[in-house]
């Protein structure tokens, strides 16, 4: 039942924020975010059964929420990153801003805990709406176009997935089966070989656009670039995991034979994204866009882990999802603070800032090193597991992935050097304020904790992945 409370508090909190005075909305949202974290900690202690009640009986739709090793830590990522985003936002953005942030949290929590395909789809689209409005009203000059692009591109994939969802449910009823949208029951369907590729494509498109994976990232540069930094942090940290989560939660159990069949093509797709993102990150002059393309490259890495179709690769992807969310989210928020202080995002315009802002430089370096995979920090653990998964059968892709890791060090350190180091040309900025350190430290601490104690996640994720893998074995797929 605690999962329901998590959602209920988020939804009620968002509505409460809407009726707060403009100035105190941030405080209220911060308190509500903290309460949600409290509920989440309780959930972590007593994972429980979730909830499963009839919703629209005529269509076999159930209100089924639950949390397992796969989703539990993504829920945690959501509550933590939302709280950080709230604290990193400006109070003058007003109550509607905080309403949308908390509503986004509500949608994301639902997305990561839904176990009924219809419910999953509802939340899948619900999370699009807050981002649309955040981009429309609290963003740069091209924000509206970015908002339009975000919604239309995402819905393009989603609506075809909706056809896929209904098709899967309809096929399940033939010749004789109840109409249901329960994921655990739909895995037993027998699809016609002529239909399967289309349904596979419908789901794949939606997840690949949301993540985004190359070449479906058309909305990404605009949306990441235009959104205010905390929202970019949420987009890259939390929302991008929704697409990856869809692969793990829905596509692997449902389409394992097809994954085996298309494996080479999918790996090539992921590796192109990995390399493309890295090269694009290298040639950006805008520090936010470097991170955006770096994130695209990382998502290619996570996708490689999944498409390796090995237990350790999938486990690595599961771990990396959470770790990447915390690291890249933190990085975007630090960059946002930097942009606020300097008024620019151009790497060439900044030099030697570590003289005037040593604390900020330190945290920047910490998150940058984490994303590039320094041993001891979680990026390394995730990438190690993914590459281990690849080495067994797909050694070529493993080699490419390692080469890209070197490039990752290059493009991340290039930004750090450009901005923080180099000759001090008298540019002075304000260092982190005490109030900001107050929430950056826990985030950095969490990242460090994951780096030295990855077993905290992997030990829990393994049982639920075994569950998925057992399903796969039943469908005739080897692991």
């Amino acid at each position, binding site marked *: 039942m605690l999962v329901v409370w998590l959602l209920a508090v988020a939804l009620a909190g968002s509505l409460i924020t809407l009726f707060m005075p403009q100035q105190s909305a941030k405080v209220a949202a911060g308190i509500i975010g903290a309460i949600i974290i409290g509920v989440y900690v309780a959930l972590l202690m007593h994972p429980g059964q979730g909830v499963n009640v009839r919703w629209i009986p*005529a269509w076999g739709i159930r209100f089924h929420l639950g949390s397992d090793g796969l989703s539990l830590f993504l829920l945690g990522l959501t509550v933590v990153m939302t709280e950080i985003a709230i604290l990193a936002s400006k109070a003058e953005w007003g109550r509607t801003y905080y309403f949308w942030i908390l509503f986004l949290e509500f949608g994301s929590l639902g997305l990561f805990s839904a176990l009924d395909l219809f419910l999953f789809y509802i939340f899948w689209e619900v999370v699009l709406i807050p981002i649309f409005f955040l981009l429309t009203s609290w963003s740069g000059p091209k924000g509206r176009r970015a908002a339009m692009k975000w919604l239309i591109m995402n819905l393009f994939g989603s609506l075809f997935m909706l056809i896929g969802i*209904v098709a899967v449910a309809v096929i399940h009823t033939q010749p004789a089966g109840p109409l249901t949208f329960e994921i655990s029951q739909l895995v037993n369907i027998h699809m016609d070989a002529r239909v399967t590729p289309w349904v596979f494509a419908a789901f794949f498109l939606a997840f690949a656009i949301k993540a985004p994976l190359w070449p479906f990232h058309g909305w990404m540069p605009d949306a990441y670039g235009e959104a205010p930094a905390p929202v970019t942090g949420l987009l890259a940290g939390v929302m991008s995991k929704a697409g990856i989560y869809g692969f793990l939660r829905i596509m692997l159990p449902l389409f394992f034979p097809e994954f085996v069949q298309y494996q080479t093509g999918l790996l090539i797709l992921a590796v192109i994204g990995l390399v493309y993102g890295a090269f694009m990150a290298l040639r950006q002059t805008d520090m936010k866009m470097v991170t955006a393309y770096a994130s695209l490259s990382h998502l290619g890495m996570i996708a490689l882990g999944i498409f390796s179709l090995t237990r350790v690769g999938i486990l690595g992807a599961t771990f990396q999802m959470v770790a990447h969310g915390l690291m890249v989210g933190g990085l975007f928020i630090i960059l946002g603070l930097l942009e606020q202080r300097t008024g620019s995002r151009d790497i060439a315009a900044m030099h030697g800032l570590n003289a005037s802002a040593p604390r900020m430089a330190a945290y920047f370096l910490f998150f940058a090193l984490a994303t590039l995979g320094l041993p001891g920090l979680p990026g390394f653990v995730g990438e190690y597991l993914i590459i281990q998964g690849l080495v067994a059968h797909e050694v070529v892709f493993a080699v490419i992935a390692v080469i890209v890791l070197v490039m990752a060090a290059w493009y991340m350190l290039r930004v750090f050097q450009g901005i923080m180091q180099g000759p001090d040309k008298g540019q002075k900025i304000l260092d982190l304020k005490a109030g900001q350190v107050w929430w950056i430290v826990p985030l950095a601490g969490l990242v460090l904790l994951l780096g030295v104690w990855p077993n905290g996640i992997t030990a829990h994720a393994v049982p639920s992945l075994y569950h998925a893998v057992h399903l796969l074995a039943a469908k005739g797929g080897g692991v």
Partner: protein
Amino acid sequence: MSSFHLMLPEYLVVGFVLLALLGNMLVGNRFRLASWLGLIGLLSSFVASASIWSHSLQPQVMISGGVVVDNYSLLVNLFVLLAGIGAILLGWGERRWGQEFPVLTMISVLGMMILGLAGNTIVLFLGIEVLSLPLYILSASEHTTAGGEAGLKYLLLGAFSSGILLFGLALLYGALGSLSFIRFASLANTTSPLLWAGFTLTLAGIFFKLGIVPFHMWVPDVYEGSPSAVTQLMAFGTKVGAAAILLRFLDWGFYLSPQWWGPALGYLAVLTMIVGNLLALPQTDLKRLLGYSGIGHAGFLLVGVATHNLDGARAMLFYLLPYGFAVLGAFAVLILVAGNQDTVTISDLKGLAGRRPLMAAFFIIVMLSFAGIPLTGGFVGKFYLLQAALFANQPGLAIGLVVGTLLGLGAYLRPVQALFSVADESRATPVWTVSGAVVLIVAVIGTIGLGVYPTPVVHLVNQSANFFWLH
């Protein structure tokens, strides 16, 4: 149940029409009195329809097959009465239209109700005419050039389509020797050219009222020129009436021979969804935009008919309600924003989010429902249609529906984004009116309610479209 009791909703409307006319004669030109009588008449008819509806109600055929009262007709009553009540409330402050406005609205709603219970071709034609004649007058009640143009256009094209419809019905009678829909099914087993021509012309006449491409040319101009309250009645009520008779005509009269019309309707549905939503994209006038969106939604409705299964019939019937709520809400905002203006463009909406946040929030909700975003009724309606299309094994219809939805998205989001632009200082802040607020709140509660917990309405619709011969 006696036939009087079963027809009580219709009798109530007729009674209140007479009462309103009599009142006008006795106490003079009293707009407010006529409005109240219209409101009470439609509300009492609504209550009567709801009280007759029951799980155990068997279809009652009366007047030698001309009238069929069943749960289906009663549900249609509820929908069109909702549209009628909405129209009277939205026109509440518009004294300049005169006391005829409520009376004509009631008569038009009566025509829609007749379409719901028509069992033979004579009553079908009667319903279409009773619906249309008052609307011809109403659409011209704005004394502007655009109003006159709208009225004339609607009258000429409407009369033309009525002629086609009548001709088709006559040919059908000539080919089959019967007027009753139920008899058609057993008689229409041979394809004579006469039957084919009659059938096609009849469908063309109904498609004209429904606004299906290529019979849609009149829609945007008439919607634009008519007073907003009347446009709302056309967009919601007329669509319900025309869709109801289309479903009854095809699923009662020609259910044995869907191979004639199923594919044709499917192609028309896809064409209508795509053309309607595509043409809505560049519109700047909000009423024209809603007109084209209405065409697109007529295409969505046609999906339910074209699938020719029980799910399709139910999905179509369900879809009418979220569509209707969205129409009510959109026109309520439009009227509130318009004030004394005749037209509302997208740029008139600028800055509404800052000036009237609640009004803007409600407008966003109905627009998202039009676009079919989850947690609004529009999504559940589209989901039901999608189910019907895939159960009928027609993925083409499903893809058409998705493409239409995507195209429509752009059209519905532009007004939404305009809400957040900087306001034009020369425009006055819109003022809330009681009647407008009532309509808007009901529409928004309905939209969200259908999106979050559609179960009761799904149940209602499934009980109402329970034609056992479909599967």
